[in-house]
């Protein structure tokens, strides 16, 4: 049972955290993605926090989203770490200039990808960490204990790192934001300009948490 002054202080902290979610943790400004479908809803990717992008349909544009993050971070001369659990990233799909700032980790399975992400999350040189779990077997993904996600969240807290986790189904309990891409592109998308396709991406917002993740999550 909390004493009177302590509970008042706690209530005040909660109130401040609700009213000023960014200021409450001294968070860095969100990472603006350049995608109106995300930036207009949430201001960008929160930092430091986990953002989950659920890729519920084939050819839903998740790689297009990753490409947009590559472009945005390259334009700012920030470093991006991509932990690729399915070894699916195709360097020849991108102009070499987009890849100069990329550190690509070709993990063999989900557990290895989580361990690599845990190491990278502690490095102050990166601005964005992308953890791609779409190609990992579902059984492996279900075996990731929820404590691993909270551990990753805790590792991010002292940093200014934005972290995106690309998953085939909702998976990350400590995600601050959860989006879903659920419509497949048609074959005419193969002929269209990539910037046009990127701007049209409109993921559905499934979750947005405010305040202290430890308290809510």
């Amino acid at each position: 049972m909390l004493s009177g002054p302590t509970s008042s202080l706690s209530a005040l902290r909660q109130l401040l955290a609700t009213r000023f979610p960014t200021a409450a943790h001294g968070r860095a400004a969100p990472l603006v993605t350049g995608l109106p479908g995300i930036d207009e809803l949430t201001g960008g990717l929160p930092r430091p926090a986990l953002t989950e992008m659920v890729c519920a349909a084939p050819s839903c544009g998740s790689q297009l989203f990753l490409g947009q993050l590559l472009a945005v971070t390259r334009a700012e001369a920030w470093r991006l770490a991509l932990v690729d659990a399915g070894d699916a990233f195709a360097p020849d799909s991108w102009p070499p200039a987009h890849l100069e700032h990329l550190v690509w980790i070709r993990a063999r399975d989900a557990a290895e990808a989580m361990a690599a992400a845990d190491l990278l999350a502690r490095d102050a040189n990166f601005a964005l960490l992308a953890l791609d779990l779409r190609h990992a077997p579902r059984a492996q993904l279900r075996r990731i204990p929820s404590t691993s996600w909270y551990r990753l969240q805790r590792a991010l807290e002292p940093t200014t790192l934005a972290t995106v986790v690309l998953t085939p189904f909702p998976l990350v309990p400590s995600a601050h934001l959860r989006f879903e891409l659920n419509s497949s592109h048609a074959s005419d998308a193969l002929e269209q300009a990539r910037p046009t396709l990127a701007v049209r991406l409109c993921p559905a917002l499934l979750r947005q948490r405010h305040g202290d993740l430890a308290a809510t999550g």
Partner: protein
Amino acid sequence: MFAVLCVPAFALQAILRVEPALAGKPLALLVPGRRGQVIEECNELAIAEGVSPGYSAPRAQARCPGIILRPRQPDLESDARDTLLAAAFGITAYVESTAPGICTLGLEQLAAARHLPALQHTLAQLAGLGLPASAGLATTPLLALYAARHAPPGQVLPGDRAFLAPLPVAAAEPSPELAPVLASWGIHTLGQLTALAKADVAQRLGREGLALWERAAGETTRPLDVTCPAQEFTARFDCEHELETLEPLLFILRRSVDRLALELANAHQAALAIDLALDLADDAQYRQSLRLPEPVTSADILFRALQAHLETVRTTAGITGVRLRLEAGRITVRQQGLFDGGLRDPHGFADTLARVTALVGAGRAGRPVPADTHQPDVFSLVAPPPTLQPLSAGFSLPPCGLPLRRHRPPTPARVALAEARPAYVSAAGVEGNVTTAIGPWLGSGHWWEAGRCWHQEEWDVELAGGGLYRLAHLPRQGWFVEGEYD
């Protein structure tokens, strides 16, 4: 002024530096004698059990059954001597390696007010490096030596005449012939000896007596035989037993790295690369040169680089020797450009990459560089650049449709054709009627090189259930799903 740094029981201490587990046990050093192995040095625990230098090994074991007997280890002593000198060079450039475990420093170039703090700092540094020492500070090298020998461990004792008087005559090292003569005269301390007139002592004991009197008075002074600081930053260690795990190897390396970092700092240089060689029990040698992201003098960073690398190494046999060499260069001073995307912590970045590489395996982490070829999925992984230059104006995403997510390796598929176009696809995780098929896109290359020739036919297909895929048909191998447009 002169100072002396003294490491008591130096040869034993050199062993204890790398085997700290021996610290709480009676320990003695064996050397060959006329009639077998005899004890040259022993620690206080052994002395408390009744063991003394000069005892034979069986006699020592009879007195103290738990005593640990070790031969001298010249490599370890050499490394300990270099460490002592490196610490001394941190105070002044006038350093003499007087004897094993003793070095004398000329402090003329150092302000008097800094003598004591500098010596105290060096003693703390030596204790951290596994060499607990004491120091003496006096007007002559000899007085400073007496003071250092009688100072409590870790402390600086100023040497003066008053300090000398109560010391036993043995401190002045009389010859075996003179010692009993003085004892028969009732002279047991240096004060009693120097109370005699110098001329009378010279008249009765001759030139040897005169020299002893001068030593007893601490008057003997001499120029220092100055040692050159290290020009090569190397360390070498031969193991008594094969090392089979990482921990003992890291412990040894830490000691060497600490010393080398000290030598680098004294030389106002920084390490550019680390050359590591491990001698293996099967007479092979493992060699690796680790280039550092930036010149560095910090022992912690050098050690981290070694540790991160060694965590990835598997040797074919146990390790019998370690060689370490630092490639030294000038410390670079450079101002970063306002718009450069430099690394915040270059060593931390290299450390993270090394750890991730240790986790996922070599060749599986880095910056992807597509190869200059039309052959699909050919690229290399290289080290990320230390700085990122800003992009030129007008940069935008290329207009080339959806990017590909590869199936690596490509997924074998069964494809039904209708009018020579894919009509149905069945593969692991990909199945359905093809509603749109665009192609074929023909590709081939290296037809002029045997074994590297490739040829394939590609189709971009949309499935009825949703999803855009790239199919590849290889003449001899059949159909594959190469990836998903996403």
